[in-house]
């Protein structure tokens, strides 16, 4: 088993040599200027106000929490995946006799219990990403026609912009008459 990981170690050291060689070569060759403009934080030409380290929303925490739970679940499911097959072949009989279907049911219960957690988060709305929207929800117009000025609203308008409208209504009426 050591040899398997030793080769990984050799591979990693090759990678490290490559990366550091590049970094060192670049640090020798690249120009070193002390122009301070380049060191400013990029904000599309605006001057930066304050630090970037701000408080982040708790939803990230929720997501990470659910991730932890499911990461643990998946770590347990890998042995489960192996056991189902092994017990079929009869090799698992040494450890537990014919545990295939038994393990299957257990796995189902395990998944179901943790799915309850996901369902809880889901129902409570913690998976909805748009939360901090404190204004009343946007109500789409019930019909598109409401956006278009009707004859009634135009007649009720003040004088200064009703001339064109009056022409419109007159033409409409003439068309209707025709």
């Amino acid at each position, binding site marked *: *088993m*050591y040899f398997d*990981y030793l080769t990984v170690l050799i591979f990693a050291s090759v990678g490290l040599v490559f990366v550091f060689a590049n970094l060192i070569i670049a640090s020798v060759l690249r120009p070193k200027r002390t122009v301070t403009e380049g060191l400013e934080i990029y904000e599309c030409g605006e001057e930066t106000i304050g*630090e970037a*380290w*701000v*408080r*982040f*929303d*708790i939803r*990230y*925490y*929720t*997501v*990470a*929490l*659910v*991730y*932890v*739970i499911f*990461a*643990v*679940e*998946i*770590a*347990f499911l*890998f*042995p*489960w995946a*192996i*056991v189902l097959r*092994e*017990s079929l072949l009869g*090799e*698992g009989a040494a*450890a*537990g006799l014919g*545990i295939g279907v*038994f*393990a299957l049911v*257990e*796995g189902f*219960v*395990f998944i179901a*219990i*943790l799915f*309850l*957690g996901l369902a*809880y*988060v889901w129902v*409570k709305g*913690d998976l909805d990403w748009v939360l901090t929207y*404190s204004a009343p929800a946007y109500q789409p117009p019930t019909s598109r026609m409401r956006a278009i000025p009707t004859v009634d609203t135009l007649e009720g308008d003040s004088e200064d912009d009703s001339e064109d409208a009056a022409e419109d209504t007159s033409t409409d009426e003439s068309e209707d008459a025709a």
Partner: protein
Amino acid sequence: MEQFLFFLLSLSAIAFAVGVVVVKSPMKSVLSLLGSFVALAMIYLLIGFQFLAAAQLLVYAGAIMVLFLFVVMLLNLSDVNAVFDAPIRVLGQKRIAIAASAAALIGMIALFAGGSVQASESVGAIPAEGYDQIEYLGALIFSRYMIPFQASALLLLATMIGVLVLAKRRRDSASDVNSEEPAQ
């Protein structure tokens, strides 16, 4: 070679662990802890526990440390120095912590020196598959240790819901404060 690797990894694990406590920036603390976990995982690998090493990386280094990072992001980092200057230092918690850990260390040394904890003599060469053939691990989890396994699932569920209830209560009270402002 193994001895050398073991000491190297143990020393780095301990150094990182000390770094977690000593470093002032919480971000660096989290990274130190990550380094400590990775070193631990490699020690597990060294003694032939592949599944344990992978689970350590997947669950602790991969998931729980991300959670910690998000918690650090959730805190207001500019207030960190305020935490260090807080009157809580008056309690002398640093001294108490040092005394407690020293006592624990002395206790452990006494246990080992007294011979009540002994290294297993039968450990020989590590088999090619490692010690934890995953089939046997699975067979044990799903037969003999079935109840602890399901209990762990319940524990996880309870943890998640508990934490979310606490977190959401805070957020609801915060949003109440916010929602009162435009009303006035």
